[in-house]
């Protein structure tokens, strides 16, 4: 599959303060030669612990970060070589849904205005009001939602609204950064199903970033594991989670608690990442 959005050997580092006044320059490498790609109509997952580099990768894919090395390409074009018009088309084509819809929607704007805003800002040439009515329906809400304000909605409904806003400019890639981890458990399945339907029906490409392996395995057909700023393993979810090879993947898989293990009394049993058992240094006393 030819990649639609691609990170090619992307390296990113931030300067650190010098040790001494005339000491050597130092920097912190957060991405170290990252290759990552999503094809047209493909759903790929990105997993890793906090601090592994997921957020920096997301920012690079959105063009919010200029990498120190390597290239970010959209449709084969290097972002750095794009002119203003191309850049605008890129911003329209890659949209993001964040973890917490309560902080990503302006509380003082009606939902309708929140959805119109990006269409105006991106100069989308179609009937904005009609487009907004269309996307609000696509995410399973009614047009009456448009006149209301964010505080009138539950977390699950707000996440639907955030998805509608991302869809409004007809993007080709949707980046979903932990889209369900802030939602109630009975709502998570609805939102995951909705994302899957959108990818299928609209032919959308999706990058799903999550810490929950089950969520990623359910929603994507290919997963990359990032650790210490490098992609350490990549493959189909089943292969990765059944036969993890990289240590970071094994740690993530070992961390998963399953219902069956729990009910069988071995839910906390040590995996490869086990710590030594707690020893009793202290006789019972105190009360």
């Amino acid at each position, binding site marked *: 599959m030819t990649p639609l959005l691609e990170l090619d050997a992307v390296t990113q580092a931030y300067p650190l303060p010098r040790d001494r006044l005339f000491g050597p320059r130092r920097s912190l490498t957060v991405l170290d030669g990252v290759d990552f790609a999503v094809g047209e109509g493909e759903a790929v997952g990105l997993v890793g612990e906090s601090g592994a580099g997921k957020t920096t990768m997301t920012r690079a894919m959105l063009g919010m970060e200029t990498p120190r090395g390597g290239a970010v390409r959209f449709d084969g074009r290097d972002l750095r070589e794009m002119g203003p018009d191309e850049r605008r088309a890129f911003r329209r084509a890659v949209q993001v849904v964040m973890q917490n819809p309560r902080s990503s929607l302006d509380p003082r704007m009606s939902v309708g205005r929140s959805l119109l805003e990006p269409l105006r800002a991106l100069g989308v040439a179609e009937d904005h009001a009609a487009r907004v009515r269309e996307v609000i329906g696509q995410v399973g809400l009614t047009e009456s939602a448009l006149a209301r304000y964010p505080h009138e909605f539950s977390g699950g409904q707000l996440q639907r609204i955030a998805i509608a806003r991302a869809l409004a400019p007809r993007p080709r890639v949707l980046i979903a950064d932990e889209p369900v981890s802030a939602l109630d458990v009975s709502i998570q*399945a609805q939102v995951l199903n909705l994302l899957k339907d959108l990818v299928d029906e609209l032919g959308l490409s999706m990058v799903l970033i999550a810490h929950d392996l089950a969520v990623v395995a359910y929603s994507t057909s290919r997963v990359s594991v990032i650790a210490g700023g490098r992609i350490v393993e990549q493959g189909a979810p089943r292969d990765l989670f059944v036969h993890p090879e990289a240590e970071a993947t094994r740690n993530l898989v070992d961390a998963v608690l399953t219902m069956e293990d*729990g009910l069988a009394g071995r839910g906390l049993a040590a995996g490869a990442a086990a710590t030594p058992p707690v020893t009793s240094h202290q006789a*019972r006393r*105190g009360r």
Partner: protein
Amino acid sequence: MSGADNAIEVRDLFVGNGDLTAVQGVSFTIPAGGRMGLVGESGSGKSMTALGIMGLLPAGWHVRGSVRHDGVDLVGQSDRQMSKRRGRTISMVFQDPLSALDPVRRVGRQVTSILRRHLDLSAAEAERQALDLFAQINLPEPARILRAYPHELSGGQRQRIMIAMALACYPQLIIADEPTTALDVTVQKQVLRILDAAVRERGSALLMITHNLPIIAAICDSVAVMYAGRIVEAGPVAQVFRTPRHRYTQGLLRSQPTMDNISFDAGARLPAIPGMVPPLTDLPPGCPFHPRCAAASALCRTRMPPFEGAPHGAACWHPADGAGEAP
């Protein structure tokens, strides 16, 4: 079982603030050394149940009912009596250790002050016990951590310190409210393992509040499921999770993607529970779950089902009789 054998007996607990009632007649018992999981979503009343028991409700909120613990009813206790009790016979671990720890005091001081206040120890003796505690929760370099400030520690280390503080005085009951939700996944299991071992060693009872069902399966022996302020299903963990009777429990078990039920098939869809959690200010009549329930009948829309069955019971007019059966 006589009352003295129980770590806590909650009867008909109501928690409200005049405008709304977050907890509507909750009853459960945890025997000494027992471990109960309390499952629920936001607005289900699970955290308000815990805060009501601990006497830590926000201003304007009050409790009704009875909470028998250590030979007294906690509901009638004064703030002074409760503050002597908290951290000693009953203690709590919160979700976010960073906001539960004092940012401007060294963690050693925060741990020793609990030991000194409740156990009347000298400063040197308290410090020695704190070091013992740190070793028990597998903290590396306990002497260094004793002098550290909360911001110098990782999230997992901070939560282990919260656990050490909660366990310091060998409480009869520990309430843990989403203790691992704010932690990185790879650290969660380790923190749960430490909590599990430390609770076991002290013979304390545990009330584990979480929305994560596999955590409850791993660490608890009984479970109560809350919905809209009430317990809708309760019983031994294996029975409730293998053969859920309430349609809500059944829906939760099926809809959560876990590594047990995951399908790698691209066309698969999760069996989601439709609709949303009703706001407490606008509960539907009858069974509060009926608008989301495929098995709802006219009866469900008008009358609240009573909680029936022991040890595994449910509040449902049309309980399911097997885990595999479709509603």
